[in-house]
């Protein structure tokens, strides 16, 4: 794995930390940033998510994969407060996150993106970015009236936003409406906007969906970059090349449960995973097949 580029220090650290971890669903990690137990969500009679236990290693890139309908996005929604589980408890940085409103999770350092991009099309790209910054004085209406209260903060936010835009190669689109961006650029904008919240855990829901192959490589680089800056990344993805390429650890879900965990290489050889995807033993590696 990772033969085509040298490993960064952060990558090595993450892989060392994960090397001793048991290759089994719900395995305990050395230093878990997210720790969830007994998460169960039913929609009518259907059990969408039934996760006994899961931990996410701090400073790692963890991929969450599984066939359609496995409950990956639902688990995302539950962990970020956008949906409430029937039962279950989970902590983020040792803080219980039950009954925490979705907008509070972001200020605690846990930010997410969406499967269908949510760029605010009638706002300019730079306004999208500025919106991401937390603790803005001018977001209180009584302060909003007085430019001198928030203008200085706004200037530093804009500076940070421009840096991020340049990093994501969107600098030239700064003053365009977000609606004028291509699908791939919107994905980038959403990711960059999420970073404006200064997160410690970034949760990306299908970052590669609808992104052209040329852009995928640079998106991979961006995701590695996040981890190199000390963030933890958890992402849902169907693109197996990408999973193999960037992730340190893979968690596989099927029918709401976690059925396997391990390094990308372990997972590609795991018969339970191949079963889940293809229904029967096909006798060949899923990841190589992709």
């Amino acid at each position, binding site marked *: 794995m990772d033969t085509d580029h040298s490993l960064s220090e952060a990558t090595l650290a993450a892989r060392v930390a994960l090397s001793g971890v048991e290759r089994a669903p719900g395995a305990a990690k050395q230093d878990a940033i997210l720790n969830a137990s007994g998460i169960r969500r039913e929609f009518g009679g259907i059990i969408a998510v039934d996760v006994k236990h899961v931990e996410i290693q701090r400073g790692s890139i963890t991929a969450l994969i599984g066939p359609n309908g496995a409950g990956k996005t639902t688990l995302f929604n539950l962990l970020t407060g956008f949906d409430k589980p029937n039962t279950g408890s989970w902590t983020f940085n040792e803080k219980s996150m039950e009954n925490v409103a979705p907008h509070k999770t972001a200020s605690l350092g846990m930010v997410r993106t969406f499967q269908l991009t*949510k760029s605010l099309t009638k706002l300019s790209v730079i306004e999208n970015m500025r919106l*991401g910054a937390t603790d803005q004085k001018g*977001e209180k209406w009584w302060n909003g009236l007085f430019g001198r209260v928030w203008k200085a903060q706004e200037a530093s936010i804009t500076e940070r936003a421009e840096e991020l835009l340049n990093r994501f190669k969107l600098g030239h689109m700064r003053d365009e409406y977000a609606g*004028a961006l291509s699908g791939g650029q919107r994905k980038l904008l959403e990711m960059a906007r*999420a970073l404006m919240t200064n997160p410690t855990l970034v949760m990306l829901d299908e970052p590669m969906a609808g992104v052209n192959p040329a852009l995928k490589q640079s998106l991979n680089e961006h995701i590695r970059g996040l981890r190199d800056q000390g963030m933890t990344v958890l992402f849902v993805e169907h693109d197996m090349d990408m999973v193999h390429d960037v992730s340190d650890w893979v968690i596989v879900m099927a029918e709401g449960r976690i059925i396997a965990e391990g390094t990308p290489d372990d997972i590609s050889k795991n018969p339970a995973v191949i079963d889940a995807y293809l229904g029967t033993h096909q006798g060949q590696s899923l990841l190589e097949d992709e």
Partner: protein
Amino acid sequence: MDWSLIIENSIKGFIGINAVYFAIAAIGLNVQFGFTGLLNFGQAGFMACGAYGLGMTAHYFGISMWWGIPIGIAFSVVLGFLMGIPTLRLRADYLAIVTIAAAEIIRLVVRSVKFKTYFGGSDGINGFSDSFRNIGDNIGIVQANQYGIWPLRFTGRELWTLVVGWIVVAVVAYFVYLLMKSPWGRVLKAIREDEDAVRSLGKSVFSYKMQSLILGGAIGTMSGMIFALDRGSVQPDNYSRDVTFYILTALVLGGVAKVSGSIVGPMIFWGIFTFMDNFLRQVAKDPIHLGNFTIMKSTQVGQLNYMLIGLTLILLMVYRPQGVFGNRKEMAFDGH
């Protein structure tokens, strides 16, 4: 046909008190609908809060009318919470249903016989605006005098409310303009686009929607106050559903999500409305007969006028959907 009268009245319609109170209410509605995407169909209810705030202070509480301003605003804040708490967590359409119902409940309660001692029933409350009129007299705009030359002629009574009214429009418009340029306004606009995105970035969408509903409502309350001061009376049926929808119409005409649109829209609305009304009345005064068929009767003026207003709006929506001041480029991204 008396063209000088038609022109004079049309200009009065364009900048008159109707345009003023519509403009204030439209600025408030624009905060909610244009900037935040909240479907408030009960702006008339907020206006009634202001009007009855003034009326009740004098009539029922028996204190100076000026206390009615904070009391009216307090009414509208309470109304905003009552409407917002149950609905702002739900989909947009629920707020629409609740606001239209709440405004009607207010109208029916204040006009009911049961509460006549408090609200004056269907007669409303009259004769409380003397302290407002006296100020006008004292600063030299005497009620009974005539001011101006054709086509701008007003009585002192009209002129004084117009001066105060347009000052309120300017102050409120500047206030909203500043807010919408601020990060606070940016959050509102983002909520209009996609609530979940805003939530994922750590903003309490519910709280911002509540602030927007109450701010827009409080501005609507001021509109009700200006209207009540102009008439010197409060009548429940001035705050019925159609008022809200005419204000919404005027707002769309001017262009939503633009402060200037919410001022110019009502001016154009009342300008055209008054012009058509006066013009058709002049036509009906000297009706054209085709055999037994009379082209225009005076009783048909009202109906025809509303039909033509409707037609104007349809044409506007077809050829200029963004309104007079709206941004065409912004409209282009409607489909996401």
